[in-house]
């Protein structure tokens, strides 16, 4: 009887353990503000947002601020933080973690599972460009909010089977406004030229300043033709150095995500830098 109870209990436990990864396994909140960069109201608001997005998309969106990485690289710290705290939905541990460390002024975005699919290298580059400015200015709440909202968009896009990637980056609403202004300015310049031509048709009175029409045909004779060399001088300037930045290299990427193994052996994608 007792043995049977144990069997049932273990079967139940096994069932629960197997079923568990379908839900967020972590006890840690999705916002860990160790460095204390946010006010409590900002924190609450942001956490609500992260929770809402994560639950709805079934992909964890996590933000971590640290005072110091304690000697670890930003990538390792972020990967380990993710793995050790059991973030991520499902077997693949779908999710993304955004880490910033104040002492090193490092940031890193670590992706896992479906996060690797949704956040491609090009997508991460675009995403980080959008928030780095706010980060550098110290407007952390704004940067995190942007990160959360854009992540939401990235995940939604990836679920359509076509994640943001090289040649297929998110639309910038400002781009459209810029286009409109540019189109109008170009249109105005063109119409200024066109109406200028129309205006010039009204004017047909022009004084003559030359007498080219009255030169006798073939009357021009060139009697002196002297090209005297005076002197020369040579200047030299150094050739500009070949620029070899990661940016110019990255434009030749064919898209997709590059991945690495974390210390726990899990596969992660990501991107990091300084702010």
């Amino acid at each position, binding site marked *: 009887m007792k043995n049977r109870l144990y069997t049932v209990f273990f079967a139940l436990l096994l069932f629960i353990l197997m079923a568990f990864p379908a839900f967020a396994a972590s006890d840690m909140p999705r916002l860990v503000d160790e460095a204390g960069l946010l006010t409590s109201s900002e924190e609450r608001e942001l956490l609500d947002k992260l929770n809402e997005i994560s639950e709805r998309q079934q992909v964890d969106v996590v933000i971590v601020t640290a005072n110091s990485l304690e000697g670890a690289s930003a990538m390792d710290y972020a990967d380990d933080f993710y793995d050790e705290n059991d973030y991520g939905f499902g077997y693949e541990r779908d999710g993304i973690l955004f880490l910033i460390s104040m002492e090193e002024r490092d940031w890193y975005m670590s992706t896992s599972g479906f996060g690797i699919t949704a956040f491609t290298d090009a997508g991460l580059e675009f995403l980080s460009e959008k928030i780095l400015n706010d980060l550098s200015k110290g407007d952390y709440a704004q940067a995190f909010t942007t990160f959360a909202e854009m992540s939401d968009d990235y995940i939604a896009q990836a679920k359509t089977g076509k994640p943001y990637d090289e040649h297929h980056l998110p*639309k910038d609403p400002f*781009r*459209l406004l810029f*286009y*409109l202004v*540019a*189109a*109008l300015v*170009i*249109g*105005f310049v*063109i*119409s*200024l030229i*066109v*109406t200028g031509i*129309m*205006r010039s*048709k*009204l*004017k*047909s*009175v*022009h*004084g*003559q*300043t*030359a*007498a*080219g*029409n*009255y*030169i*006798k045909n073939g*009357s*021009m*004779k*060139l*009697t*002196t*033709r*002297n*090209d*005297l*060399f*005076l*002197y*020369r*001088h*040579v*200047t*030299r*300037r*150094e*050739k500009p150095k070949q620029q070899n930045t990661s940016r110019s290299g990255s434009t030749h990427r064919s898209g997709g995500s590059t991945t690495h193994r974390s210390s726990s052996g899990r596969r992660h994608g990501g991107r990091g830098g300084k702010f």
Partner: protein
Amino acid sequence: MATIQEYKCPCCGGAIAFDSTIQKMKCPYCDTEFDMETLAGYDSELQNDQKDDMQWQTASGGEWQDGEANGLRSYVCQSCGGEIACDENTAATSCPFCGNPVIMMGQVSGALKPDYVIPFQLDKKAAKEALKKHYEGKRLLPKVFKDENHIDEIKGIYVPFWLFDASADVKMRYKATKARTWSDSRYVYTETSYFSVSRGGNLGFEKIPVDASVKMPDDLMDSLEPFDFSKAEKFQTAYLAGYLADKYDVDAQESAKRANDRIRKSSQEAFDATVTGYATVTKENSSIQLKNRKVHYALLPVWILNTTWNGKNYLFAMNGQTGKMVGDLPLDKTAYKKWLFGLTGAIGGVLYAILCLFYLL
């Protein structure tokens, strides 16, 4: 004080005038046509005939001379006896009473005799047609201007011009540079070579026309160019019959300044063009000596059309030989704004649509 000339038809006695369509004198009453050559002889005889009248007219002219009417002259019409008062420069007009064409011989004979005349090739009707055409294809011309268009005055005038002939000896000096660049593994080298370039030669100019009438705006007359001087005739007063004509009131010395400017510019341009193969060319010195200077006096045919709109006077001129029509037209400001902003909207819209299409793809 001065004689005037009327050409009477030897056939019926009516006053005859030059007909531009047949390039002959024609009597409007009996349709008899006369060659210009025939009239050349007839012309001189008629001048002799007038000698007697001269004394009689001097007396009446004298009164004018003392009076307030400066710059006015009066003549007596030989057909009707009416008094023709006109500008001191007038050389040909028509009698305000009987409409007969008259020519003031004193204004076109002796020292004032023009060397050439280009006879009118186009008549009043052609001038009116040309004005209508002048209005066409101009979208910014106020519609009202076109619709309400009525020509206040249209007159065929022989405008006095000075024609300048000269050959120019030109000496020019330039500073010019050539540049060459090459590079090795570390540096880019630029070698600049400096040259002193001189050019000399001569250049002939023929019959540069300069408006010799104060009344006619210079730029308007300039715009009528070119005239075809191969069709110019030796001057005969008979050509003036039926048209208005003025004698010059800007002397050749004064007009030469404008001709010189034009000669200088064209000579320099012609020689500038011979300096080739350099990266930069700067003019350092230029000197132009004019040789074989000759000035001719010519009467050139111009149709002048006058119209008033919104209290402003618009002056048009047509080359009486080639039919070239010139004259500035008023701008319809509301139409201009409509076009400007309409086009901006249309072009901007199309561009925006194209950009959006690219953006979405």
